[in-house]
């Protein structure tokens, strides 16, 4: 047992932190978020630093996700590496160099997406919603129903019949979009026999990275609160000298450390061969639950500690809080993860073979 980062992993995280600190000073984060902006300029730098290397291990990706959450980096890295690359890999394809994303969620307003054969290829028609980083993606992986079940297709962007409609969101740096597809050409990546499993594995992989991102968000919120607690003086003392403030932040720290441990563990298991699937799935659920708690708690404590300042648009903390709320709600619900764990914990062991019959 050795639950420690290697020197290489530490260096990778430090280099990532430096790059992002340089690209995303807090004013720039606020400016980008304010204008719902994207920042394509960082993409080549990330690639150069190896963020998209196919050999990058899962723990390494987890560390990059942590730093992305800490910096609130406005890049399509997570959508690309977390959501789209696993599908390309499962399809045995090379990884495109440009930003990508995955569209699989139904529009809450109704309407799915279907694919039909057209000549030697496929055409997709319908809608997908809550698609992240859709406007920056050069290709979209789209889940669509076929006569044989769900399959995964690559759709270039722009493409005939494809409209990307931005949906107004609480969190503004990752965004959400509704895709409208009308006989849009798509290339089959993963056929129905395996697409369901590939999609589930991909969502889990991406969700584990989001757990890491949430750890980064929690760490940043705690840092902001801590800085303020040292600088802000009331009643003649820095407010951090009052226990009601200090103990609140200590509790944020507890939640942060628990989440850090579980998120890194989930990464390690996800990236390690010969670990059984249920262990990976449970570790994922634990990491998501703990990291959502940690991120929301750290942000809300920070909002309390920063007083009226924290309640303003100008003070940037709310951008991290918005990301925490996005993380808290994106994809599988916390109660579903809890139910997965409860099933595992409370399902009675199966009857010994031979006794069940008769």
């Amino acid at each position: 047992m050795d639950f420690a980062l290697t020197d290489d992993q530490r260096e990778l995280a430090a280099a990532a932190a430096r790059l992002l600190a340089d690209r995303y000073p807090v004013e720039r984060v606020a400016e980008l978020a304010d204008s719902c902006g994207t920042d394509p300029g960082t993409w080549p730098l990330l690639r150069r630093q190896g963020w998209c290397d196919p050999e990058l291990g899962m723990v390494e990706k987890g560390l990059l996700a942590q730093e992305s959450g800490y910096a609130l980096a406005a890049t399509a890295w997570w959508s690309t590496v977390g959501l789209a690359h696993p599908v390309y890999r499962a399809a045995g394809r090379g990884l495109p160099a440009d930003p990508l994303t995955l569209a699989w969620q139904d529009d809450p307003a109704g309407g799915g997406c279907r694919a039909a054969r057209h000549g030697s290829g496929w055409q997709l028609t319908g809608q997908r919603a809550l698609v992240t980083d859709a406007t920056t993606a050069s290709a979209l992986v789209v889940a669509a129903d076929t006569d044989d079940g769900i399959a995964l297709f690559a759709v270039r962007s722009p493409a005939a019949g494809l409209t990307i409609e931005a949906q107004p969101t609480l969190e503004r740096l990752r965004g959400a979009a509704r895709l409208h597809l009308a006989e849009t050409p798509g290339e089959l990546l993963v056929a129905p026999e395996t697409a369901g499993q590939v999609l589930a594995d991909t969502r889990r992989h991406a969700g584990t990275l989001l757990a890491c991102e949430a750890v980064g968000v929690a760490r940043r919120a705690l840092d902001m609160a801590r800085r303020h607690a040292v600088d802000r003086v009331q009643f003649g003392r820095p407010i951090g000298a009052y226990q009601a403030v200090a103990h609140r932040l200590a509790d944020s720290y507890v939640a942060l450390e628990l989440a850090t441990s579980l998120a890194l563990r989930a990464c390690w298991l996800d990236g390690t061969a010969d670990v059984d699937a249920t262990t990976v799935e449970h570790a994922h659920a634990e990491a998501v639950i703990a990291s959502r708690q940690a991120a929301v708690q750290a942000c809300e404590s920070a909002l309390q500690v920063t007083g009226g300042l924290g309640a303003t648009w100008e003070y940037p903390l709310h951008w991290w809080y918005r990301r925490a709320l996005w993380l808290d709600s994106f994809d599988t619900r916390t109660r579903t993860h809890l139910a997965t764990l409860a099933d595992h914990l409370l399902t009675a062991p199966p009857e010994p073979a031979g006794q069940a019959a008769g």
Partner: protein
Amino acid sequence: MRLRDTAEESEFRARLRAWLATHVPRHHGGTAPGDWTKALHAAGYTGLTWPAAYGGRGLPPTYQAIYAEEAALAGAPDHVNVIGLGMVGPTIVSHGTPEQQRRFLEPILSGDFVFCQGFSEPDAGSDLASVRTRAVATDDGWRVTGEKVWSSYAHQADWCLLLARTEPGSTAHAGLTCLLVDMRSPGVQVLPLRQSTGDSDFNQIVLTDVAVPHDCVLGPVGEGWRIAMTTLAHERGTFGITLTARLAVEFDRLLGTVRDLGLADDPAVRADVAELYVQLQGLRWTGQRTMATLARTGRPGPESSILKLHWSVTNQRLAALALRLLGPAAMLHGPDSHAAGHWQHLRLRSRANSIEGGTSEILRGIIAERVLDLPRTR
């Protein structure tokens, strides 16, 4: 990074498990306090991580974690030797003279010396630096007079690590010294205190002119605070691994209770249980991070500061949930109560978890000051 046992670790675990399976049942109920430690020692399971020069096996910290897990699973009667093996021993390794190391370490490992910790006093609890027990210099050493309270297992102990004021008129952290006191010395009186559970595991110690020779001063005279902090660091840090291992066993028992009571399909219970499990897993894997940092750098990382604090919170939540599951039957406390009153007892006992070894308020203050670098709150 490797989150599973190595081949050597698995082999160690398997052997230990087999050994515990035969030996734990022999030590249940009524044996003398050091007996379990003696059996462990004979089998080579004490001092796993102590340096070989001090009679230990010099193994990496992960082996201590394996021991903690397996001992908890097997229900080993580990409580009495915890202070000597887990706290006082390592303090003597760090701060003792070579002569003291020869004299105390081997007997601690072998179970011949059971230790207790005499820090708290009626007027020195959280504010430990205000201890008043005073030691007056004599030709041969010191004469100690004062009163200690809440001293766990003092009624079974051979020795006590005592914090006393050696410099008359000194206040706070200065002027304190750590003494190794023979509990059989004339003038030492141990009076059991009854806990809210009805048990009597802790005691008052009254010291009246107790002679302590020079060679029983641990560390430099006047630097007792630093020595005592070493002991507390072990209690609040790596001991968290042992506490978490025991919590995991209680959690399994909780699952049994849920099933026995036919509540395994109750949605609210399921959510509570799963939520608790996430906290337990967080503690377990944070403990493993602490062990890995300890193995690499010789000291636990900052994350170790959450272990005792969050263990107490989680153990209390577990006990509260378990007792609530029983419904009105929670009030029955006798042979016919569920699991022989285990949950009733734990519910009461668990409230002291956030007091013993430093209260949660004190531990949050330590995180705020030392980890988060906030100004002093006291």
